[in-house]
């Protein structure tokens, strides 16, 4: 079966005054229909840029993207329009991703208007249906975003993304701006929708407890590179890359008996501008050796579990 989405060696560099900023640097992954890929990493590791590049909100510098087996790396304008009906995005901040001068129904109707081919009353029906699907009461139809709370706003964002019945949705930290009780509601809504419609998600987040709950597979990114990629359970039980270990050790544990050892990272994050060819995590890694200066290769340490570290075996043995 061809995967729904496949990415090969995807690169996105930004020109800055200091030099080339490697936001996304050689990312490979493939994603099957109906699955969720969690992308985690700290701020500035390129996870948001990765999502935006997939949707051509910024153009990739290099690499290839395949959607349902078709190469969509450099789509023609006409193809891009159709592509965006299949691929959608839910934005991070529901406070800035909605136009403050558009009412709830106007905002949800906008994608339908832009696609065309529907009468006004059909669009209105569809809008109400969508509002019902995401759980916004009909009485909010003519409200404006500033009159709603964050959870409801994010539901509008979800309704907009669903309006064109996409197959694949990039969720760019969709719950990080919401408070915890609303986060759970929103995530459950997204999971329900996935089950109902067979949606495929790429779930970008820095919240590890969320990503464990929702993902089938998890990709850990550091400075534009994928440092580890594994099925969700495998990654949480058996992280191999030093960075993933440190990241996972930061999850609080509700137990006083088995205290987990917290791995504290020291030092500044390396600059993503003109990075050296070696391991990018080296400057902060406790296990750094001379061989880490060589370019690293993604290795499969167990089936489906990939790690970008030349010393992963020695580290695990310790």
């Amino acid at each position: 079966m061809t995967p729904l989405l496949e990415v090969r060696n995807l690169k996105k560099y930004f020109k800055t005054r200091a030099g080339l900023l490697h936001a996304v640097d050689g990312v490979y992954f493939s994603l099957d229909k109906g699955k969720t890929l969690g992308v985690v990493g700290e701020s500035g590791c390129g996870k948001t840029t990765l999502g935006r590049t997939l949707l051509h909100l910024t153009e990739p510098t290099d690499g290839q993207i395949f959607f349902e087996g078709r190469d969509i790396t450099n789509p023609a304008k006409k193809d891009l329009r159709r592509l965006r009906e299949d691929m959608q995005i839910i934005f991070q901040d529901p406070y800035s991703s909605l136009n403050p001068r558009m009412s709830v129904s106007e905002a949800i109707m906008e994608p339908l208007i832009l696609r065309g081919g529907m009468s006004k009353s059909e669009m209105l029906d569809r809008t109400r249906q969508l509002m019902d699907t995401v759980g916004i009461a009909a009485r909010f139809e003519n409200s404006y975003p500033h009159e709603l709370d964050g959870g409801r706003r994010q539901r509008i964002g979800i309704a907009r993304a669903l309006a064109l019945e996409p197959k694949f949705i990039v969720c760019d930290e969709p719950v990080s701006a919401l408070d915890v009780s609303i986060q759970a509601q929103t995530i459950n809504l997204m999971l329900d929708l996935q089950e109902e419609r067979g949606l495929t998600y790429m779930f970008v987040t820095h919240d590890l407890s969320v990503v464990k709950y929702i993902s089938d597979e998890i990709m850990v990114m550091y400075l534009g590179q994928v440092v580890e990629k594994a099925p969700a359970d495998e990654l949480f039980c058996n992280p191999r890359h030093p960075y993933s270990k440190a990241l996972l050790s930061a999850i609080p544990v509700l137990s006083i008996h088995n205290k987990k050892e917290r791995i504290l990272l020291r030092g500044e994050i390396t600059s993503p501008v003109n990075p050296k060819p070696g391991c990018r995590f080296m400057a902060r890694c406790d296990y750094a050796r001379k061989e880490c200066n060589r370019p690293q290769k993604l290795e499969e340490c167990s089936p489906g579990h990939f790690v970008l570290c030349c010393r992963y075996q020695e580290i695990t043995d310790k």
Partner: protein
Amino acid sequence: MEKKRKQLRIFEIWRRLKKNRLAVVAFFILILLILTAVFAPLLAPHSYSQQNAKLANAPPSARHPLGNDRLGRDILSRLIYGARQSLQMGIIAVAIAATIGIALGTVAGFYGGWVDNLSMRLLDIYQAIPMFLLCVSLAAVMGPSLHNAIIALGIGIVPGYARIMRASVLTVREKEYIEAARAINASDARIILKHIVPNAIGPLIVQITMGVGSCILAGSALSFIGLGVQPPVPEWGAMISEARKVMREYPTHALYPGLCVMISVLACNLLGDGLRDALDPRLKN
């Protein structure tokens, strides 16, 4: 349903504006001035151009409540008709400037890059010429008349509007909802018209109301030096200019039109001030 919503928004702004007494007073003064201008033929007791040598520089009387000017024309009637010219100068000139300014500023701010650089550098050059001097030379080249004065004024004050709009667009452009619109295939035109302009225009609305006041003033100045409205058509600036010759003997001839200019400019500025507060959602309560 949608219309009701729009009306509600206007009510909301009006409700907030009402809290500012001065702005409300200014608003009614402006309405009154506009009505005066529109219904001038009905309101004016006499013709604005009827001369009467016997009444030259006559003091106020029952028939001529504000007296007569040096050609014996009724000053009150001239003031009432003058409102037409003066308000036209203010409103139309600002409308011209705001239209060009919004278009230029939005395009420069939205597209950025060389488009932005080119248009802003042109505006720099433009602004290096003193605004009033520019208006004077434009009006002089095109020939003195009301319409040319309005056009000259309108063109003269474009840079201010374009710059404000550009700055405002620059902040709105970076908002996530612009990207969200892109993601659902919105064209540039739609993004500009539906998402950028409505959200960026706030600061400009204030500038527009204030601009009307300064345009009335500048228009009066143009008329004063003879480049605006031509006699016998009355205009407040032109009336002051004429009264200059008899200023020492009959200071009221210059005083009345001067007061009219002052009141309308003040009303515009106060309304602009009030609107700024009423339109800013952060100052909601």
